[in-house]
């Protein structure tokens, strides 16, 4: 086996594995979300299909496949078809540059594997760029269906995404300054050692962590920021007219975005694959274990927020984004810049 062939095969294998892990996680999350939410609201949730309702996602998938595909007569065909495709493509591309653990040697071989599809020099910027392309799916879906609910939902959604993208990007800046790199693996390396070095700590980037998490929740339209799909006002927002598998693709993009945000939060603020406590074992596949645990914790916090916080009103949302989050993020940038310039040189 020649080196180039081996590298390409390894890359292909990584892509196949990651895609399938993500799809599996997505279907698992649809179930976990409903069960955990039900638990928080003193209900049982879906528990009929399989043990603990574990086969519920499969049943949902089969149902969605066989549903009738309805398309509004006045819809713009190509844009209506393009919107779900853009949504899913952007969601998967964003997660392609995130590392999931330290490089390790495959058992029984001497092949080094970096559990990451592409290690870019500008990893964080790439993610920002691709997620900003994701807005097109919202705009396209809202406009192409030729329905007032879709259009209003699409407008609201995209206005919300622009407003919170600023705070999101500015929250990155402090983290980047502390690590001195856009590369996500460098940012994780800068949080190595003790748990006190994690960026989530108040003396590191605690403020940025809070701003980032709130802005990211708005960016993926989760409660309390899910008013693009406030069902009492807009039926289901920009994907009102989508049915069958196209609806499922829209849902999939939303969940994958949520997973991306959790993975990024883990990498940027929760120390990535570093265990943080010196008595915990390291090396080998342990990094992947710590990483997965942290990601599941962040995903749980997402569901927890949904079970706890009521939805914002539209003017409150805009007020909060522009007059609270962005100034806080700017303050954090200024403070971090001063500290880095004075002490860290």
């Amino acid at each position, binding site marked *: 086996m020649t080196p*180039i*062939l081996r590298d390409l095969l390894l890359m292909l294998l990584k892509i196949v594995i990651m895609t399938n892990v993500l799809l599996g996680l997505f279907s698992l999350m649809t179930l976990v979300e409903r069960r955990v939410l039900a638990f928080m609201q003193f209900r049982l949730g879906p528990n009929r299909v399989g043990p603990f309702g574990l086969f519920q996602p499969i049943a949902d998938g089969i149902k969605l496949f066989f549903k009738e595909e309805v398309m509004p007569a006045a819809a713009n065909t190509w844009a209506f078809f393009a919107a779900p495709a853009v949504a899913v493509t952007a969601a998967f591309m964003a997660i392609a540059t995130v590392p999931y653990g330290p490089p390790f040697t495959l058992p029984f071989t001497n092949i080094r594997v970096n559990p990451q599809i592409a290690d870019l020099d*500008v990893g964080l*910027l790439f993610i920002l*760029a691709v997620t*900003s392309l994701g807005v097109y799916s919202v705009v396209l879906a809202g406009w192409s269906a030729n329905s007032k609910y879709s259009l209003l939902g699409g407008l609201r959604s995209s206005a919300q995404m622009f407003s919170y993208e600023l705070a999101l990007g500015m929250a990155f800046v402090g983290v980047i300054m502390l690590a001195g790199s856009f590369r996500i693996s460098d940012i994780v390396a800068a949080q190595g050692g003790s748990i006190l070095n994690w960026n989530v700590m108040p003396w590191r980037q605690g403020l940025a962590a809070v701003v980032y998490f709130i802005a990211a929740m708005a960016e993926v339209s989760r409660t309390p920021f899910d008013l693009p799909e406030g069902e009492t006002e807009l039926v289901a927002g920009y994907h009102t007219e989508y049915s069958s598998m196209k609806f499922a693709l829209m849902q999939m993009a939303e969940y994958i975005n949520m997973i991306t945000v959790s993975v990024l939060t883990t990498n940027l603020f929760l120390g990535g694959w570093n265990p943080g406590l010196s008595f915990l074992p390291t090396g080998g596949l342990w990094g992947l274990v710590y990483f997965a645990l942290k990601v599941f914790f962040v995903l749980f916090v997402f569901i927890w927020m949904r079970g706890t916080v009521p939805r914002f009103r539209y003017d409150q949302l805009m007020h909060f984004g522009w007059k609270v989050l962005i100034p806080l993020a700017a303050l954090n940038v200024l403070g971090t810049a001063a500290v880095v310039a004075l002490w860290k040189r």
Partner: protein
Amino acid sequence: MAGLERLLQFVVSEVFLFYVFSLVAVASALGVVLQRNPIRSAFSLIVTLCSLSAIYGLLGSPFIAALQVIVYAGAIMVLFLFVLMLLNVRREEPSGGRATRSAAILLALVLAGQLGVALTGAGVTPAAGFDASTASFARVLFGVRFLYVFEATSILIVAALVGAVLVAKKEL
């Protein structure tokens, strides 16, 4: 096996990727001007911007590539699309009198001449190799040479923003 390897090496080589992305860029740029439907034109322009970004990446400047997508495709084009969709602009009808047409033909001839000169390479020396990585780019941009220009541009942008808000909102 050797043939397959050579094929793979070619497919992942910079030259091949450059031609692929250039082809996409040129084709979608033609789409921008030849489409009658303004929304399709806007989408063709987005494809052009994204393939240009890929070419920046191939040239060894991932930072510029990311900025290209964030600023142009991610921000400016979304606003364009918003306006097009909200105003519900219909198909563009052929317009312009004889004067516009002859001016267009003249400009096209000038452009063709320039392209011809560039393609034959007469009197053009290729740029010396340069380091376009993020760090060296930042050193130039935030260095002493461009610092004041950079700051002046920021002031200009802030002034434009404040002006835009003032124009859009009659009562603050």
